[in-house]
């Protein structure tokens, strides 16, 4: 009978997890940033007086919210794959961004609506253009109001980005499966992955709270 002489300590496999962490971070960070940009655009389109913009934004949001992210990831990877050959990582980032944009746009729309009407009236009475009023007056206040909800969305992105492992992006969950297969240890890699996700989201929460306090002038 053969005895397993391999070192199956999780520490021994740290490089796998580190690699996974790298890709989870890349997807989460890039996805969040593009998600915010997309979210602002979609929110502005939604409140635009030009109806086709508004319709597009509404339909987009509804479709994204009404379908599973896993299906969206598959569609982007294999669907775009028909037209151009894109790496799994790119497909993952695109899918996460598109998904996040829809959710963020709803949050931002609520944020814009939460800013007192007097603010845009004051801006208008001072001669500010709509764009300047939006950029300098409305959006900064909207972002302050929605900060907790936005933080929630970032944390969701970190966790939900794990879906991209199904198209072969080597994120934490992907590496976790490799380590499980390599070591025949069923539970330990899961625990490691869980701790990693928790540390990520917990750290992010602290950072977001710090900025929230900084924005608070009241």
């Amino acid at each position: 009978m053969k005895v397993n002489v391999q070192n199956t300590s999780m520490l021994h496999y740290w490089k796998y997890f580190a690699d996974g962490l790298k890709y989870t971070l890349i997807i989460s960070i890039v996805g969040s940033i593009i998600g915010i940009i997309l979210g602002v655009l979609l929110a502005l389109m939604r409140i635009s007086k030009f109806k086709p913009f508004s319709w597009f934004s509404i339909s987009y949001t509804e479709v994204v919210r009404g379908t599973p992210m896993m299906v969206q990831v598959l569609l982007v990877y294999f669907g775009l794959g028909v037209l151009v050959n894109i790496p799994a990582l790119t497909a993952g980032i695109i899918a996460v961004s598109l998904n996040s944009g829809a959710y963020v746009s709803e949050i931002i729309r609520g944020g814009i609506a939460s800013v007192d009407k007097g603010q845009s009236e004051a801006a208008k009475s001072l001669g500010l253009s709509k764009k300047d009023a939006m950029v300098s007056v409305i959006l900064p206040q909207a972002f302050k109001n929605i900060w907790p909800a936005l933080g929630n969305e970032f944390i969701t992105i970190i966790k939900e980005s794990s879906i991209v492992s199904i198209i072969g992006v080597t994120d934490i969950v992907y590496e976790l499966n490799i380590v499980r297969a390599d070591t025949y240890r069923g539970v330990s890699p899961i625990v490691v992955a869980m701790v990693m996700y928790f540390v990520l989201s917990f750290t992010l929460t602290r950072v977001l709270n710090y900025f929230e306090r900084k924005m608070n002038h009241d």
Partner: protein
Amino acid sequence: MTKTDDKVMIQVKDLKKSFGDNEVLKGIDGTVKSGQVICVIGPSGSGKSTFLRCLNLLENPTSGEVLFDGKDMTKLTHSEIAGLGARMGMVFQNFNLFPNMTVLENLKLSPKKVKHLSDEDATKISLDLLDRVGLKNKADVYPSSLSGGQAQRVAMARALAMNPEVMLFDEPTSALDPEMVGEVLSVMQELANEGMTMVVVTHEMGFAKKVADQVWFMADGYIQEKSDPETMFENPQTERAQDFINKIITD
């Protein structure tokens, strides 16, 4: 009050405004001359604020004309209306300072964005104005730490930073604690003395009596009476105005 020259600044012709089925303004006519101080008084819900907000197009009139410097503003495009903000300042009941900026930034924003002044010039103008309203020491605080009276003085300074030709006041002292009304009114009086053209919707009859060149009494969507302050408060010509004046004097 002799500084009034005869140049017509704002002319309103048959101005009407409805919100849905609710007709708030039923036909307003009036002329504001350069340097004049007009106080608009009247019972709540008579359309005073709506009238004022139609003057700078915060509300779009349903029909009628608002001529500013001879141009019908109701026919302007969006960007032209925005340009008006540079020439007509407005002070709101609830101040509407921007809470995400310091007092100084509140003042500088428009001169920089609209008039494209350099930061240096905008800062100089703003600090001068803050000095004028007695709040230079508050330049770097956020609006939330100001008292109501201070906030309203900052709001006036902010409107003045655009060097407007006309100042509109929408019940500027109604949201203030009684002890803060005086400081705001004294800045307004100073402005009037310097020859600023002003349209003031107010419940401060003392101010109207002292500062106004003309008092317009509004009720039921019409201007019922336009008189000099003395006539309006001592000997109103219309029954509606008599009623109103008697009420506020006995109360």
